[in-house]
């Protein structure tokens, strides 16, 4: 579910890449303030959230050099930033809920143990409020999955509503735009994840909304995946199109090029890769070092 919202590194200017990395490292530091272990679950997706919100609402970026125990050297990190703290909280919440979900699915006790450590005990007030809404949507999603819902849109809607809440941190005009942007980002993530996992889910006989939406009735799974590809492309690109349109209506103070890279290039490239089946990238919690398999 994580790791789809990324920049296209090769198309970032060196300066832009370093700024993005400062946000990434800044997010790591923020998470680390509340839990050292939770840093392992750091995602690019929440880095995107952090840099987007900061670039809309903050006048000045504060960047300092801090020592990173992981890289064993000093690195530039974004600091003193309430939006990064918020993104950090969201990262922790989503990681914790994913661990609990993994435990419920596979009875993996390691996931259960990790969920106790990467927990939601020290959140800000805004984050706690969001947690209630996130849990509500996750519960809806869970119910639909149990009922073997046959609509990728209906199941995706739950996840999209969740991300819509996460992105909308104010009730101002920008908040309205962020709400729609977040909705489409979430729709895109859920749909692309379902398509990416399709073959594995068919083989393991796990629920996947696409199986029921497009009436898979046994037979060659690869052929089925190919047959639904055009429909999937329409939905995925439409999500990105709407993300782009919403983005154009935001008043971004800085880092516009980095965010554009993610929306128009990184996510687009990810779409192409998943649709054409070249590389599989699954940054799940258990894949702590993020295995990228190319075939």
């Amino acid at each position: 579910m994580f790791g789809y919202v990324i920049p296209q590194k090769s198309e970032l200017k060196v300066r832009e890449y370093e700024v993005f990395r400062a946000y990434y490292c800044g997010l790591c530091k923020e998470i680390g303030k509340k839990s050292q272990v939770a840093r392992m679950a750091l995602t690019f997706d929440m880095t995107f959230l952090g840099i987007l919100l900061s670039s809309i609402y903050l006048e000045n970026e504060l960047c300092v050099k801090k020592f990173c125990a992981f890289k064993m050297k000093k690195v530039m990190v974004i600091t003193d930033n309430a939006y990064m703290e918020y993104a950090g909280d969201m990262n922790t919440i989503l990681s914790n809920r994913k661990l609990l979900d993994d435990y419920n699915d596979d009875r993996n006790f390691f996931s259960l143990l990790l969920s106790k450590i990467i927990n939601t005990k020290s959140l800000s007030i805004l984050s706690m409020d969001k947690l209630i809404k996130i849990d509500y949507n996750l519960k809806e999603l869970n119910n639909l999955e149990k009922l073997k819902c046959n609509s990728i849109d209906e199941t995706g809607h739950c996840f999209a509503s969740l991300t819509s809440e996460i992105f909308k941190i104010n009730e101002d005009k920008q908040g309205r735009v962020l709400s729609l942007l977040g909705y489409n980002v979430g729709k895109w993530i859920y749909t692309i994840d379902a398509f990416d996992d399709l073959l594995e889910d068919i083989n393991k006989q796990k629920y996947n909304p696409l199986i029921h939406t497009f009436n898979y009735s046994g037979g060659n799974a690869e052929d089925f995946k190919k047959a639904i590809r055009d429909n999937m492309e329409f939905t995925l690109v439409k999500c990105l199109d709407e993300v782009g349109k919403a983005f154009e209506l935001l008043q971004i103070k800085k880092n516009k090029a980095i965010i554009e890279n993610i929306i128009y290039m990184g996510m687009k490239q990810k779409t192409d890769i998943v649709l054409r089946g070249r590389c599989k990238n699954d940054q799940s919690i258990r894949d702590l070092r993020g295995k990228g398999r190319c075939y």
Partner: protein
Amino acid sequence: MTNPYETLGVREGATEEEIKASYKELVKKYHPDKYENNPLQDLADEKMREINEAYDYLVKNNQGGNNQDFYNNDQYNGNNNGYSNPVFQRIRNLINLNNLLAAEQELNSIHDKSAEWYFLRGVIFMRKGWYNEGYNDLKTAIAMEPSNNEYRSALNNATNSNNTYMNNAFSRGTRTNSDFCDTLSCLCCADQACDCMGLGCCC
């Protein structure tokens, strides 16, 4: 009014050609047609008004330039020739007001699923962000009434918008030979894997 140069994205003292070129680009970006089935349509309209104001101001100040409205703002009625029954008209009005819940409820109370019924449901789905259902319903409407231009236009607009996004995305990147790009992006994938949660431990 905010700084008109800033709104149009041109430097102070830009020539009329530069202003016109920038204006054309912005109209393409915020054109009402692009935001036709979009909940943020009013914000796009606002942005368009800002841009037009800025353009009028700058062009008038440069010379007695002619003001051209590059667009016309049509309410969503499509090619409605007045034949559709009053319930469908009511639903169309609800869609225009972005009251999708009411529109959907009214639609569900109709049992005769005509082409127009599928079309309107398709439009509602697209606005809701349920793109797969929307796509299917629009295709169904077209299949039931292939000669209807309104239904075809709606699907074409959606597909064209997608293509605009893809072209936009494509034009930003370096358009090199795809083989090398494939290798590079594969390396990038692997690179991100061995980055061990960093974006480049080797640099």
